[in-house]
């Protein structure tokens, strides 16, 4: 529970004009013992509570933040290990105030537990054999949402957990029956609601205190903005897979607009109408998922549920739909190559899509099957999904799916994709088969490599042609050099004892070479510096932060969308667009003379 403590030590209106900024605050944050709070987040909320900005304190506890907000504002200090401190400030449009904030102590262990990230809770789950049993849980539960946040750790009895796991299977989780039973049993025993001792350390650094985070709330509790992408017009676009909406955000003004996708002659849930899709979760038919932009300005969207590719013209606001393939299931991540060809993975049918916007020619190619059993599954899975659609919302076809006895690894699941800037080749990651592959765009020749860590998810190239791959199932980062064909692996540092991390996606800032990664189990964003082989942690100001892709602005910000499923489980009860400005905090300090 948030304890509102108004600790205004000094409030000095300096009345210094600040261009394009309004409320500005600077001061110090201290711990309960009076010592400086290092790495604490100081967040200023706008008067309407629709957006906020955050900076991090330096080693001496100091901070400085400029915001565009005015009026009655909330200012919050947050640090792992301490309860939040909240202050209300009346800010003028041109003023700068000194505001010192003191963190207190938790009343009890239960209150402390409420401040922990999901990772602290799922670290305590009593797996019969953690190496054998946890991977299926990480792979099949953590990819949609955190497990262990306040929404998902509610104590349930054994039968209720079995029902929950079965419900998730109806949403495309693919554990075997044996894995389902183990997961239900472990969650029943582990999420018992009893308070426990824990300590989390988010690794404050001088780098952290230079950063700044901006967030804008968007949509409702069932908005599911899978990906966010910065387009050439500077707007941030978001694909709402839950509601068939394309959202846009103007970061300068905070203006959010929505563009509903055109209707299609499919039932709710699209081709996946046979699945048990909870009302409100997937109310749409298209399921817009990922985006990429061609040089003519058109934005290309993979529609996972309708198995279509769609273009959106930002100038005319018009959509156009293209069929992908008769047996293609779940077009996933999309990228554009150097010749303006649109490439996208098709996860559930192990295919790759290629679309030429000039000729409007669509080509779907099968990727290597990786064994007879996977071949059988690849070939039959679309047919099973069609059978399921004859019995809407029943998920009857799951009773014929081979994942029930083999688990999710029965599928190859080509997932993330990127274009090598050095030679223009197309590279992808097979999530469940744990492989990466290369396609020669001229000959269409395919070659694959096994990855040393399991669960390669959404990889990206850096400017030099090094392939960076997040290992979701093992909490790692992989570096692959296509020239030497060698891998290098890194373990992502965790924030607490026995915890693990789930890096869903990454992107490499082509200008700085920095690798930005999601760390969805512990509410943080990770930056990896390849030059020094060092990880830096940016704690998210928002509890239950799940990020699925990153995009960069011209001025060096890294942006994403918070897309835990459902968004109602996020701290605000709604998702947000989020941008991190690596030098934004430093700029505010300089401007405020702090």
């Amino acid at each position, binding site marked *: 529970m948030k304890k509102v403590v108004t600790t205004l030590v000094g409030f000095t209106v300096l009345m210094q004009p600040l261009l394009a900024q309004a409320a500005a605050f600077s001061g110090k944050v201290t711990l309960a013992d009076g010592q400086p709070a290092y790495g604490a987040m100081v967040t200023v909320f706008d008067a309407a509570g629709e957006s906020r900005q955050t900076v991090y304190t330096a080693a001496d506890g100091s901070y400085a933040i400029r915001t565009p907000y005015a009026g009655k504002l909330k200012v919050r200090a947050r640090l792992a290990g301490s309860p939040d401190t909240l202050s209300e400030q009346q800010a003028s449009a041109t003023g700068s105030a000194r505001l010192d904030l003191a963190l207190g102590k938790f009343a009890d262990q239960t209150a402390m537990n409420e401040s922990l990230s999901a990772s602290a809770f799922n670290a305590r789950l009593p797996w019969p054999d953690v190496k054998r049993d946890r991977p299926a849980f990480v792979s099949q539960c953590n990819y949609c949402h955190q497990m262990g946040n306040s929404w998902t750790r509610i104590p349930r009895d054994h039968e209720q957990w079995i029902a929950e796991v079965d419900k998730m299977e109806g949403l495309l989780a693919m554990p*075997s*029956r*044996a894995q389902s039973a183990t997961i239900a049993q472990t969650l029943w025993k582990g999420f018992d609601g009893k308070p426990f001792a824990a300590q989390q350390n988010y690794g404050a650094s001088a780098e952290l205190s230079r950063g700044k985070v901006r967030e804008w709330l968007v949509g409702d509790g069932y908005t599911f903005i899978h990906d966010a992408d910065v387009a050439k017009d500077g707007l941030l676009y978001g694909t709402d897979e839950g509601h068939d909406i394309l959202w846009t955000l103007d970061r300068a003004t905070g203006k959010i607009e929505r563009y509903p996708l055109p209707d299609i002659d499919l039932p709710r849930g699209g081709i996946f109408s046979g699945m048990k899709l909870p009302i409100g979760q997937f109310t749409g038919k298209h399921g817009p998922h990922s985006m990429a932009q061609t040089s003519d300005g058109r934005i290309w969207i993979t529609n996972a549920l309708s198995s279509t590719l769609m273009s959106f013209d930002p100038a005319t606001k018009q959509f156009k739909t293209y069929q992908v393939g*008769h*047996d293609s299931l779940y077009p996933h991540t999309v990228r554009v190559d150097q010749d303006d060809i649109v490439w996208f993975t098709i996860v559930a049918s192990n295919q790759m899509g290629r679309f030429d916007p000039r000729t409007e020619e669509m080509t779907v190619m099968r990727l290597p099957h990786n064994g007879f059993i996977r071949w059988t599954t690849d*070939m*039959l899975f*679309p*047919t*099973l*999904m*069609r*059978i399921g659609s*004859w019995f809407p919302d029943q998920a*009857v076809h*799951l*009773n*014929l*799916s*081979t994942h*029930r*006895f083999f688990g999710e690894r029965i599928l190859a699941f080509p997932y993330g994709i990127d274009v090598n800037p050095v030679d223009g080749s197309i590279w992808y990651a097979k999530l469940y088969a744990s492989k990466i592959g290369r396609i020669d765009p001229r000959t269409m020749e395919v070659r694959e490599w096994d990855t040393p860590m399991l669960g390669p998810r959404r990889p990206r190239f850096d400017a030099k042609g090094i392939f960076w791959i997040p290992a979701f199932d093992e909490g790692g980062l992989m570096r692959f050099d296509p020239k030497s064909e060698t891998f290098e692996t890194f373990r992502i540092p965790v924030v607490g004892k026995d915890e693990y991390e789930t890096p869903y996606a990454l992107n490499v800032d082509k200008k700085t070479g920095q690798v930005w990664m999601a760390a969805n189990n512990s509410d943080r964003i990770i930056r990896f510096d390849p030059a020094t082989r060092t990880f830096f942690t940016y704690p998210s100001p928002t509890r239950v932060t799940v990020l699925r892709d990153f995009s960069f602005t011209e001025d060096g910000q890294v942006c994403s969308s918070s897309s835990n499923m459902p968004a109602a489980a996020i701290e605000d009860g709604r998702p947000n667009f989020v941008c991190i400005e690596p030098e934004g905090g430093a700029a505010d300090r300089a401007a405020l003379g702090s």
Partner: protein
Amino acid sequence: MALPTRPAAAWLFAVLLLIGAGLTAFFGLSANGYLVPAAMLAIMAALLWLGRAGGLFKAVAIINLISGAVLVLTLAFGDVLGDRKLDVSGVALLVNLLTGGPLLGLLAPGLLLGLRTGKALNQWFNPAAIAA
């Protein structure tokens, strides 16, 4: 009247069908849709063991083989069917499973060869014809 001796082919295929039924039923414990072909395999094993309902036995084997072939051909070359491709493959899959599933499909060629006139399985299912 002496009962005809059960031919070796009937022994062999009945045992194989029963093993297939057990294996499919094992999968059916996780995905219960497979209990349907498991049951059909068990019925086929029983019919073969008893030498009863030869016409039905043969018809099921033929339908299974045809539906399996339609399924494979549709998946491999069915793009010409357009949006109907998965409808055709879906019906073929369900029919194939109702008639014993892919394991029966593996045994069906041997069974149908054995069911030709004059062959041991045919005589086993038609003892009256032998007596005549």
